[in-house]
């Protein structure tokens, strides 16, 4: 059973002419005409070839970059329960506008996705209203309370893409071990939010000089890294794969790298905000730089960038966390954790990492597409004849200001509001359908 759910595909016929086609997985970097017919890439031609069939949409893409569309391993669609903040429709529309052909939604909704009934209803919703295919994770523990395992077998049979208690850790090591053992049965990955709650406590901001000066309760790096080490040790002991959500600390990266070196099958993700910002941003007291895990120091940020570049961390995740405007228009400490990211991820990373020459464009494209696809066992999107069309057309010259155009997301709690970025998504084809065009 597929782990992605969306409207039944009626593939489009499109010709994208003259783009620079980059497919990092296949080592392609060439100017080509790409023909999509019935939702499948049917031809890759040298530019200027004659191939205008009746009814094909022609996209003139000279000077633009065409790449495999992005996959987001970590978003919050807020449905069911907080449809004022986001819905499957609005969240997937935002994703399409950000260049995504698939997103994976976390189960910390209200009610929690911990039963086949809740999951089934979501899948139905996605079939009816999703702009791009969605994978739904189910909870590891019932109600995400950390006490009893969910019925993972049944949930996997009903289409759960994986399991996570994201938003909170699996506090008890014993339960985490059972979940790993049980995951043999489902074959679906476990995605863990690593936080030792007795160390993070009421922490708001990375424990360090900035928190000390501003008076915020500190959330130390070690609160994350001890849990990363625990879960990696359990995964090693049980010989099961593991996915680490939203890493933020240098120590976590080091633990992951060491575990991978000994053969542990562990993947991880990092968010654009952890790659671009440090806790210095908190000096603004802006609730839109409040997230869990918190922004950390420059050493942490550079460790994350290095790990993304060398593949230790194979995936970029937005951790898109929409919040109602009135809930973020409060003092920092009263605001909920989380920021949006689906509509700005490529531009933020292109602006902050690719343009200054820190990360090559091909690496970024790989970490936003094939890397995260593999986390959930998806066939990586590729630009090849016969492949389902999952492509994004990028304008790397275009400059824009975040917020000048309304967000497709129902929420506007972006950490980039007002910032000028370079790089814009022009078009997204997801599962053979033209999902977004600007």
């Amino acid at each position, binding site marked *: 059973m597929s782990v992605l759910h969306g409207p039944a595909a009626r593939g489009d016929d499109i010709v994208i002419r003259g783009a620079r086609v980059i497919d990092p997985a296949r080592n392609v970097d060439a100017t080509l005409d790409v023909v999509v017919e019935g939702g499948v890439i049917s031809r890759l031609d040298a530019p200027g070839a004659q191939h205008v069939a009746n009814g094909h949409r022609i996209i003139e893409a000279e000077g633009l970059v065409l790449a495999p569309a992005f996959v987001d391993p970590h978003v919050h669609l807020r449905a069911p329960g907080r449809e004022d903040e986001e819905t499957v429709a609005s969240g997937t529309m935002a994703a399409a506008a950000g260049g995504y052909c698939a997103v994976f939604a976390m189960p910390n909704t209200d009610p929690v996705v911990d039963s086949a009934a809740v999951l089934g209803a979501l899948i139905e919703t996605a079939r009816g209203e999703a702009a791009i295919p969605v994978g739904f994770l189910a909870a590891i523990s019932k109600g995400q309370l950390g006490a009893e395992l969910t019925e993972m077998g049944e949930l996997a049979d009903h289409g759960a893409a994986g399991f996570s208690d994201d938003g909170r850790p699996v506090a008890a090591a014993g339960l985490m071990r059972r979940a790993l053992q049980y995951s043999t049965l489902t074959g679906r990955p476990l995605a863990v939010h690593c936080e030792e709650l007795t160390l993070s406590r009421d922490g708001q901001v990375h*424990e*360090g*000089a900035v928190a000390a000066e501003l*008076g*915020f309760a500190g959330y130390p790096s070690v609160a994350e890294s001890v849990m990363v080490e625990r879960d990696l040790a359990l995964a090693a002991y049980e010989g099961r794969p593991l996915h680490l959500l939203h890493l933020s600390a240098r120590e976590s990266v080091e633990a992951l790298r060491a575990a991978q070196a000994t053969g542990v099958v562990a993947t991880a993700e990092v968010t654009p905000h952890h790659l671009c910002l440090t806790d210095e941003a908190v000096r603004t007291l802006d609730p839109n730089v409040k997230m869990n895990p918190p922004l950390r120091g420059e050493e942490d940020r550079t460790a994350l960038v290095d790990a993304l570049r060398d593949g230790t961390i194979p995936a970029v995740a937005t951790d898109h966390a929409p919040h109602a405007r009135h809930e973020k228009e409060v*003092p920092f400490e009263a605001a909920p954790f989380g920021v949006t990211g689906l509509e700005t991820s490529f531009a933020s990373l292109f602006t902050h990492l690719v343009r200054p020459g820190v990360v090559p464009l091909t690496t970024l494209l790989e970490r936003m597409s094939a890397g995260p696809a593999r986390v959930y066992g998806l066939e990586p999107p590729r630009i090849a004849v016969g492949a389902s069309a999952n492509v994004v057309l990028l304008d790397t010259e275009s400059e824009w200001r975040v917020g000048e155009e309304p967000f497709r997301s129902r929420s506007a709690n972006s950490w980039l509001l*007002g910032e000028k970025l370079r790089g814009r998504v022009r078009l997204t084809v997801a599962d053979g359908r033209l999902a977004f065009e600007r």
Partner: protein
Amino acid sequence: MGDIHLMRDELRPPVDPPRRHLMSVADLSREDVERLLGTARSLARSLEREMKKLPTLRGRTVVSVFYESSTRTSSSFELAAKRLSADTMSIKASGSAVDKGESLKDTALTLGAYDPDVLVIRHPQIGAPQIMARHTNAHVVNAGDGKHQHPTQALLDLYAMREAFGRLEGLHVAIVGDVLHSRVARSLIQALALVGARVTLVGPPTLIPRGIECMGCSVSTTVDAIADADVVYALRMQRERMQEGANYVPSLREYTALWGVTPDRLRRGQRVMHPGPMNRGVEIDPVVADAEGSLIETQVRAGLVVRMAVLYDLLTQGPTAVPTAAVKDPVAAVAESVA
């Protein structure tokens, strides 16, 4: 559903209009501090006269909103405003719409509708004064926001130290106690650094925030470190901030035994300060509090004149900081205007 449109002013960073506030000591320059202390000095002289009221802020409105209990700060702000002839209004969170769940933004919009000239706010959360500033047209004075800042306390402490020593530069101040939960400590460290004084923090390792030495102070976990300080500044053990089971210190008894400011730990000539309210017998020995070397009452008196100076400065100076020399002596200025 409609799209979410952003107003222009919602784009980050929130840019405050050219209106002066007192949010944080970090926003002040040394010149600002000198000017404010100088103004406070002049105002202190005016208070020695029989007629204590000055007409300076007649027709102005000073509104104070206190979301946390306070004796010293709220009363001194109110008296300061009255001594300068401003109209005053004080709102306490309990018994107000805050009890009914009104958000800070809505309270700001409500109070802002009365067009106050100055809003004084105390709030348990960091950044609350910035929200007030964003949603009103008033000059905002931070009278304490969470564990962040309490700038008028730092200014009055500087004032009291200068009264006692005749200088600030080169003074060595030991701040003893619960630095972690103390906005007083954070503001004072910055203020002392600004005027060239030296700071040593002394307290239990669990109550000294990691990384605080980046603010330019040294740190010690033994009380002996107060020996060569000119001023020993005891912080309140903030029991109300101590969460259940946090285990910052095993007991107040152990705290007092290891870090209490007691007569035998002080040497002659050292002056003792405390922001109040004191836990006598916990962080400070009652004998020390009442001894001749104590500046605690001086601090309270300084609170009044420093807060008068802050109100005067915000309402009578231009939009940007004015060099000290260009600022008129407020009492002389008043005399001129009356004449």
